[in-house]
C-alpha cells in the first residue's frame, strides 16, 4: 500500500544538501539587480522625483518611475485578483505609484544596477519630494466622522458592505432565554515565510520572449497578468516557480514588483533579479491584520444556540489587490461546526493607509472561529455549565452528515459540512488532555501558588477549493513516469503526495516519479496553492489521470500478451498476468504507443501513454479540528507557558500521515503566534514600528510545546480521494483554545487576540 503510508518525501534529499534552487539562487549571465524606493509616508502626494543623483552613480543601469514604465508600454494599474462587479473601480495597487502614496512601503521608483549593493545605494539617492496628507491609521479612524480619505480617488473609506444572513434572526433573539454580547478585537499579522518574495526575469529581444521565475503561489495568474500589463502575447511568456521557501498566503498574489522586474528586463534587454529583504516583507507584502467584531448570541434555557448576529469590521488596507474574500470567509464560517438556526452578520470592509490585506494561512477562518468559540465559552460561563457540555449540545451530530448550512461559498454552492464526527473528536481530545480531572490539577496547582487553565476549541476549515486543479500523468517510452500539475509546491510535500497517488495506480515506486508543478511551459491551466486545496484538487485529478493511463496500459498489454484485461495487474513497472511471470514493461507499452513512422498503432487506442484530467468541484471538503490546551500563567509577569497541546485533526482520507502531522504542527505554531506573539504594530500616523523579526515575534522552539496530534479519518464523500486539506486546519482553532485557557487560568474575561504579557498584567490589575 502506498497511499496512507508514512512515506519519506521525495523533495527532501536535494533540499537537505543545500541543492535547492530558490529564486535568489538563480544566476544568469549579465544579470542586474533591482531595489525599490518605497514611501516613508502613510499618505502623501508626490510633488517631484529627482533621479539624477541615482542615475549618475557608477553601476546603475536604470532608475525607473511610473513615467518610464508607462512610456515603455506598461499598464500601471494591477488587475483585481478575483474580478468582481460588486466592488468599486480603481481600487487596486499600481506597479509603481504615479502621483500619490497610500501606505508606508508603497513602491515609487525602481533602481536596476550591477549588484544589489549598488542598487540599494542608488535607491537611497533617489530624492522624492512628498506633500504629506492625513492618513487613516486604523479601523476606528476610518470609521470616524469627517475622516480623511484613504486615497484621493476613493469615494469612501468603506470599500464595500454586505450582509450574510439566514433564518429568523429577530425571532431567535426575541424568544431567547439569554442573550450575550461580545466586542472582540482580533489581529493576525503577516505570513512571514522564511524566504521572502523574489523574482528573476529574462527577456530575449530577438525572439520577444520573456521568462519569469518567481517565488509565487500562483504561477499561472502571474503569467496572464504579465501578458496583460506588459502588452505581450501570452504564448511568449513563461512563468516558473522554482523551489518556494514557504508562502502562507503572502505569495498568493501577483505583486507590482513582479511586473516591474519583468518590465525592466524587457526595457534593458538584460536579466533582472529582485529579492525582497525582510523589511520589505514587513511593509510591502500582504498582511491579514485587524478585525473588530461586535456580536451577540441568543440561547435557550438549555444553552442551545438560537441565533448569532452582529457586525464585522475588516481592514482591507490601502488598496484591494484581490477581493474581500478574507472577510467573506470570516462571515460565512462563524457558525462552523455548530447548529445555528438563525444568523446575520453585517460586514464592513474598510480601507486604511496600511499595506493591503489578503488571506494568510487560515484565511479569515481563525477569527470567525475565535468569535464563535468566545461566544460559546461565554454562554458556558454565564449559565455555569461545562464548556465541553455546551459544545456537545450544539455541535452538528455525525448522524446529520452531510449537513447543509443555509450559506453559500463564493462559488455560489451551498456550504455543506461533508463528513466528520465533531462530538466524537471532542471526546477523544478531552480524553487525551485529561479534561475530566483538570479541575483537580488546577486546584492542586493553585494551592501551590500556580495558575493553570484549560481551553478547548473546534475549528472547521473549508478545503480543496475549486474549480479544479490540473493533473497530467505520462509514461514515456523510457519508462519514466511524470506527473504535471498547475498546483504549486511551497513546502507542503505536494510532490510526494501526488507521486504516492500516481504510484498507487500504476504499480511503481513514488520515488521513481518526477512531479513538475508551477511551470506554465509544461501545464496550460492551473490555479496554484491556496485554501488547503492541492491534495484534494490536484490529487483527485492525478488519481483519475493515472487510472486512465493504467486502463490504457492494461488494454494494450492484454492485446500484446493475449490475455484478458481482468487477469492483468500493474506492479513493479510492468503489466503482468497475475500470478505468472508473463508481463510487459510499461516502457514497452509506451514505446508501442509512441508509434513508428509509417506503421500502425495497436488497434483501438490513441497515441501516447498519458492522460490529463481536470477534476472539478464547487464544494469544499470541510476539515475538522478539535484542540485542547493547558497553560500556566505567571500572574506577576503575565507570562504564558503552554504546558500541553492536543490537536485532533480530521483531514479525511490520509495519503501520508507523516506529512499531515507536519502540517498540523506548523499550523498550530502559526496559531500560537497569532494568540500570543504576532502583532504588526503601527503608530498613530500609520507608520509601521515592527519591521524586523526582533520586533515582530514569531514563535521559536523554546516557547512552543510538543504538540500531541490525533488523526481522525472521515473520508470526504465529495472527491474521489476522500481527502480533505490540512494546510490551514491546524491554525484555525488555536487562538480560541489558547485565549480560553489563559482566561481560565486568570479568571478574567479576554476578548482579544493576540494577548501580550503586559496586557495580561493589565487585565489582572483591573480585576
Amino acid at each position, binding site marked *: 500500500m502506498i497511499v496512507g503510508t508514512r512515506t519519506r518525501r521525495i523533495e*527532501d534529499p536535494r533540499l537537505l544538501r543545500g541543492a535547492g534552487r530558490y529564486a535568489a539562487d538563480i544566476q544568469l549571465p549579465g544579470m542586474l539587480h533591482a531595489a525599490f524606493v518605497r514611501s516613508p509616508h502613510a499618505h502623501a502626494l508626490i510633488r517631484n522625483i529627482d533621479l539624477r543623483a541615482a542615475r549618475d552613480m557608477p553601476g546603475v543601469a536604470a532608475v525607473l518611475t511610473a513615467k518610464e514604465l508607462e512610456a515603455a508600454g506598461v499598464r500601471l494599474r494591477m488587475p483585481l485578483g478575483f474580478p468582481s462587479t460588486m466592488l468599486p473601480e480603481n481600487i487596486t495597487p499600481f506597479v509603481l505609484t504615479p502621483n500619490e502614496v497610500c501606505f508606508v512601503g508603497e513602491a515609487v521608483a525602481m533602481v536596476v544596477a550591477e549588484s544589489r549593493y549598488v542598487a540599494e545605494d542608488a535607491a537611497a539617492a533617489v530624492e522624492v519630494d512628498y506633500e504629506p496628507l492625513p492618513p487613516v491609521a486604523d479601523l476606528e479612524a476610518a470609521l470616524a466622522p469627517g475622516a480623511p480619505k484613504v486615497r484621493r480617488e476613493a469615494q469612501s473609506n468603506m470599500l464595500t458592505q454586505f450582509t450574510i444572513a439566514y433564518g429568523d434572526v429577530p425571532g431567535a433573539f426575541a424568544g431567547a432565554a439569554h442573550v450575550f454580547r461580545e466586542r472582540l478585537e482580533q489581529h493576525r499579522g503577516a505570513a512571514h515565510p522564511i524566504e521572502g518574495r523574489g523574482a528573476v526575469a529574462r527577456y530575449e529581444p530577438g525572439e520577444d520572449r520573456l521568462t519569469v521565475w518567481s517565488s509565487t503561489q500562483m504561477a499561472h495568474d502571474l503569467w496572464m497578468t504579465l501578458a496583460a500589463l506588459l502588452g505581450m502575447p501570452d504564448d511568449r511568456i513563461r512563468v516558473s516557480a522554482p523551489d518556494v521557501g514557504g508562502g502562507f498566503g503572502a505569495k498568493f498574489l501577483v505583486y507590482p514588483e513582479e511586473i516591474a522586474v519583468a518590465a525592466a528586463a524587457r526595457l534593458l534587454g538584460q536579466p533582472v533579479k529582485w529579492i525582497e529583504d525582510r523589511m520589505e516583507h514587513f511593509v510591502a507584502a500582504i498582511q491579514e491584520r485587524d478585525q473588530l467584531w461586535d456580536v451577540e448570541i441568543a440561547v435557550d434555557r438549555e444553552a442551545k444556540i438560537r441565533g448569532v448576529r452582529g457586525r464585522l469590521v475588516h481592514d482591507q488596507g490601502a488598496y484591494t489587490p484581490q477581493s474581500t474574500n478574507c472577510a467573506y470567509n470570516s462571515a460565512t464560517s462563524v457558525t462552523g461546526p455548530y447548529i445555528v438556526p438563525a444568523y446575520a452578520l453585517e460586514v464592513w470592509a474598510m480601507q486604511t493607509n496600511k499595506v493591503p490585506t489578503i488571506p494568510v494561512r487560515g484565511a479569515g477562518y481563525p477569527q470567525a472561529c475565535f468569535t464563535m468559540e468566545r461566544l460559546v465559552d461565554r454562554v458556558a460561563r454565564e449559565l455555569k455549565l461545562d464548556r465541553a457540555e455546551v459544545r456537545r449540545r450544539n455541535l452538528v451530530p455525525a448522524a446529520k452528515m452531510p449537513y447543509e448550512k443555509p450559506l453559500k461559498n463564493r462559488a455560489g454552492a451551498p456550504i455543506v459540512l461533508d463528513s466528520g464526527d465533531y462530538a466524537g473528536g471532542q471526546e477523544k481530545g478531552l480524553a487525551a488532555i485529561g479534561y475530566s480531572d483538570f479541575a483537580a490539577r488546577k486546584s492542586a496547582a493553585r494551592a501551590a501558588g500556580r495558575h493553570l487553565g484549560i481551553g478547548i476549541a473546534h475549528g472547521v476549515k473549508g478545503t480543496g477549493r475549486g474549480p479544479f486543479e490540473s493533473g497530467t500523468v505520462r509514461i514515456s517510452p523510457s519508462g519514466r513516469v511524470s506527473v504535471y500539475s498547475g498546483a504549486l509546491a511551497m513546502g507542503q510535500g505536494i510532490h510526494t503526495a501526488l507521486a504516492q497517488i500516481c504510484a498507487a495506480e500504476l504499480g511503481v515506486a513514488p520515488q521513481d516519479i518526477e512531479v513538475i508543478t508551477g511551470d506554465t511551459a509544461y501545464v496550460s491551466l492551473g490555479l496554484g496553492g491556496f485554501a488547503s486545496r492541492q491534495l484534494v484538487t490536484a490529487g483527485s485529478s492525478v488519481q483519475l489521470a493515472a487510472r486512465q493511463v493504467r486502463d490504457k496500459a492494461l488494454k494494450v498489454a492484454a492485446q500484446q500478451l493475449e490475455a484478458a484485461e481482468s487477469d492483468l495487474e500493474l506492479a513493479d513497472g510492468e503489466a503482468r498476468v497475475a500470478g505468472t511471470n508473463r508481463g510487459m514493461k510499461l516502457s514497452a507499452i509506451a514505446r508501442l504507443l509512441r508509434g513508428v513512422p509509417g506503421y500502425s498503432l495497436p488497434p483501438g487506442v490513441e497515441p501516447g501513454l498519458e492522460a490529463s484530467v481536470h477534476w472539478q468541484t464547487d464544494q469544499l471538503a470541510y476539515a475538522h479540528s478539535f484542540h485542547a490546551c493547558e497553560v500556566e500563567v505567571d500572574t506577576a509577569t503575565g507570562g504564558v507557558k503552554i504546558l500541553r497541546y492536543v490537536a485532533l485533526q480530521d483531514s479525511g482520507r490520509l495519503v501520508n500521515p507523516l506529512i499531515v502531522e507536519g502540517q498540523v504542527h*506548523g499550523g498550530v505554531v502559526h496559531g500560537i503566534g497569532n494568540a500570543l506573539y504576532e502583532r504588526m504594530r503601527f503608530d498613530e500616523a500609520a507608520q509601521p514600528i515592527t519591521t524586523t523579526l526582533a520586533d515582530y515575534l514569531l514563535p*521559536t522552539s523554546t516557547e512552543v510545546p510538543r504538540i500531541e496530534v490525533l488523526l481522525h479519518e472521515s473520508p470526504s464523500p465529495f472527491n474521489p480521494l476522500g481527502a480533505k486539506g490540512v494546510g490551514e486546519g491546524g491554525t484555525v482553532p488555536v487562538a480560541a483554545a489558547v485565549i480560553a485557557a489563559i482566561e481560565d487560568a486568570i479568571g478574567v474575561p479576554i476578548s482579544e487576540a493576540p494577548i501580550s504579557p503586559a496586557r495580561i498584567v493589565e487585565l489582572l490589575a483591573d480585576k
Partner: protein
Amino acid sequence: MKPPELRRVGVTVNGTLHERTIEPRLTLADFLREELQLTGTHLGCEHGVCGACTVLLEGHTARACLTLAVQANGKDVRTVEGLAPAGELNPLQTAFWDKHGLQCGYCTPGVLMTLTELLAAKPTPTEAEVREALSGHLCRCTGYQNIVAAALEAAARLQK
C-alpha cells in the same frame, strides 16, 4: 561617491581555499552565494534573527548575513554543502529526511549547521538542550517539532 577600496581575501570553505578580491562591505553570505555559487546558505532576514544563513566559522556557528567576508579572511568556513560527500546525506541529514524535519527547506541549511555544532559539543543532548540550540532559528513550516525529533534521532544514531 568614492568607489570602495577592494581587499584580497582567502577563505577556506568546506576544505577548499578560495581567493577573491572583494569590497570590504561584502557579507560572508553574499561571498558564499555570489562569489562561490554556494547557494545552500540562505538569507531570511539579513538582520541576524532568523538563522537561515548560519554557517560554521572556525567550527562555531556564525550568522553569515552579519559577518563580513573580510572577517573570514584566513579562516575556515563550513556550509551545508560541506556536510556530506557529493550526492550523499550524513546521519543528521538522513534523520531529517526520516523524521520529516523540513518542509519548504529554506531554514534547513542553517538549522543543520547549528545542530552540527551542538552534536559535536554535546553528543547526547536532551530535548530542552536541542530546543535551546534551535531558539536562534525561525521556521514557519514545521513548528520545530520534527526538527527536534530529527536532532534527537541523529544523536541516538551517532551513538551506535
